[in-house]
């Protein structure tokens, strides 16, 4: 589209005027502030992070000797890194299927046109607004071993008492329960939006053909939820692998390192005195490995997903 010359530049000589009124300059002026900020705080750091991962770096001193790929080879022999990886896999394998299956079920219920539906939706969605720390304070109390609501309620049906976050085998499942509570609303919103995108004609046509409710759900609705499910699997996996706030705040990686997850380990290496503030380079290398793992997981999930998922045109 030809640019209409803007008022103030009308008297400028030919060349300067073209430059001032061209789309190129205007376009860049509009996007420049944001592009500059993103370049400075996202693109530049990702490059610098890779350089740091090949240095022996500390956040306190400016001297950062180059060590090549030593940091990366060290990861393979680091039992704490392996422990963090094992914990991340354990957490992810619990969190992703549990949260998505419950969310699907809830979203179907929340899609019914019944009384109180506004209240039900609000009840399920509301954890979206609660911060991880507030959730942590809340669940540390609900899961309190002595006075907590959970042990009391479960004791009523003959279960427990449980140690929850303090128990070696129970800490990770407790984190899973808490984070599922925190994420259900998010997942349910995505599923609900997808359910409402299911064309009415399809469901009606199937009903006219005499299909049962279950058949309609299994063969019409469920396939149409494929894209949303794929999104949620990818999404939940990414966030599960990056679990941090809850671990830092509640369990500090314990008991016995059973909840030490990758980002928590990276944080301790770079930002705490546990390793004398001197392991920032190694932490950067671990972060990069985690980044690549996340990329590969995402690509594999999309690749697998696209072979199963139907996209409606």
């Amino acid at each position, binding site marked *: 589209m030809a640019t209409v010359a*803007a008022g103030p530049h009308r008297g400028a000589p030919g060349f300067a005027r073209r430059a001032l009124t061209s789309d190129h300059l205007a*376009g860049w002026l509009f996007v420049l502030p944001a592009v500059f900020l993103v370049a400075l705080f996202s693109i530049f750091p990702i490059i610098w992070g890779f350089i740091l991962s090949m240095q022996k770096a500390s956040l306190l001193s400016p001297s950062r000797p180059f060590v090549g790929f030593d940091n990366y080879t060290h990861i393979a022999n680091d039992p704490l890194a392996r422990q963090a990886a094992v914990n991340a896999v354990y957490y992810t394998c619990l969190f992703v299927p549990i949260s998505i299956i419950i969310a699907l079920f809830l979203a179907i219920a929340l899609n019914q046109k019944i009384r109180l*539906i506004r209240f039900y939706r609000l*009840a399920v969605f509301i954890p979206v607004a609660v*911060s991880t720390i507030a959730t942590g304070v809340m669940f540390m109390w609900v899961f309190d071993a002595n006075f907590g609501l959970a042990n009391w309620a479960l004791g009523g049906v003959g279960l427990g008492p449980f140690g929850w976050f303090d128990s070696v085998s129970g800490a990770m499942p407790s984190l899973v329960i808490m984070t599922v509570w925190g994420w259900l609303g998010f997942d349910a*919103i995505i599923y609900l939006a997808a359910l409402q995108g299911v064309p009415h004609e399809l469901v009606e046509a199937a009903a006219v053909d005499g299909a049962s409710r279950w058949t309609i759900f299994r063969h019409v609705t469920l396939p149409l939820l494929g894209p949303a499910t794929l999104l949620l699997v990818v999404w939940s996996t990414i966030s599960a692998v990056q679990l941090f706030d809850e671990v830092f705040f509640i369990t500090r990686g314990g008991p016995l390192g059973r909840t030490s997850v990758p980002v928590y380990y990276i944080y301790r290496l770079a930002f705490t005195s546990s390793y004398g503030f001197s392991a920032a380079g190694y932490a950067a290398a671990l972060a990069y490995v985690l980044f690549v793992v996340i990329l590969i997981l995402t690509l594999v999930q999309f690749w697998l997903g696209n072979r199963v998922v139907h996209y409606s045109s």
Partner: protein
Amino acid sequence: MSLKHDVRATGAILPTRRTDDLRGEIGMVEKPRGRWLPFSPWHFVLMPAAIIMLVPLLWVVVTSLETLAQTQHFPPILWPGSFQWSNYPRAWSSVPFGTWFLNTIIVTVAVVISNLLFCSLAAYGFARIRFFGKTVAYFFLLATLMIPIQVVLIPTFLIVKQMHLIDTLGALIVPNLANVFGIFLLSQFFRTLPIELEEAARIDGASRLKVLFRIVLPLSLPALATLAVIQFLWTWNDFLWPLVTIFNDSHFTLQLGLMNFQGSHVNDTNLLMAGNVMSMLPMLILFIAAQRYFVRGIATQGLKG
């Protein structure tokens, strides 16, 4: 889980229709069923689910109104006879909650406003102006959505340290002045607006800036509201970045303060829960008031802070 920098390449997956408010919220009355129940059997699923979701929150509120002795009672006291409203002023004055609220408000408001401004400008450039390098620039921006926060955490810390912003509110504001999700959200929205109006204004001699501020933005209020509430949620609840950049408790945000408060009042459960209620309340009120924008923001992009 801090997800600010996560993968957002999701526009391709969800059906691309603009998600309006989830239907069925207003004035829905069940059809008479004349079956074995006077109400829908779905209530058997939804009522327990709603209770399970709400009980932890209600339990926090109940505990915040109990005496210390009542909190240390088993079985738990579900309904204290008299309410200890004084727990709230006591919690408020035992730590600098006021300062933390103010810090969080300053940071959140600054970040939301700057995002609305910079993302609008950039989104308009990408949506409506043809210029050299646009496709490449847009691709690079979207690619940064794939970057998880922990990869850029250490270098960003060093950059902010170079700027002498560590342990100031600036450390929380400056790196978040613009984000790609906002650019993406707004430019997708701008593309759906009829271009004829803008062309007519240009022919009448209006500058591009004027077109943006006088025509495009007033038509984009729903999208701007969506961006504002999602950005507000992220910034208000952010934890990892403040954790590594802020040390002095006079510069704490609410999340850091709540963590600090929990550490110093582990056994004062009633005060702790009063503090927790106060920290959650603003976000909960905003969520209930602006639920449709949160839902729209999440449903179109799939995001949580």
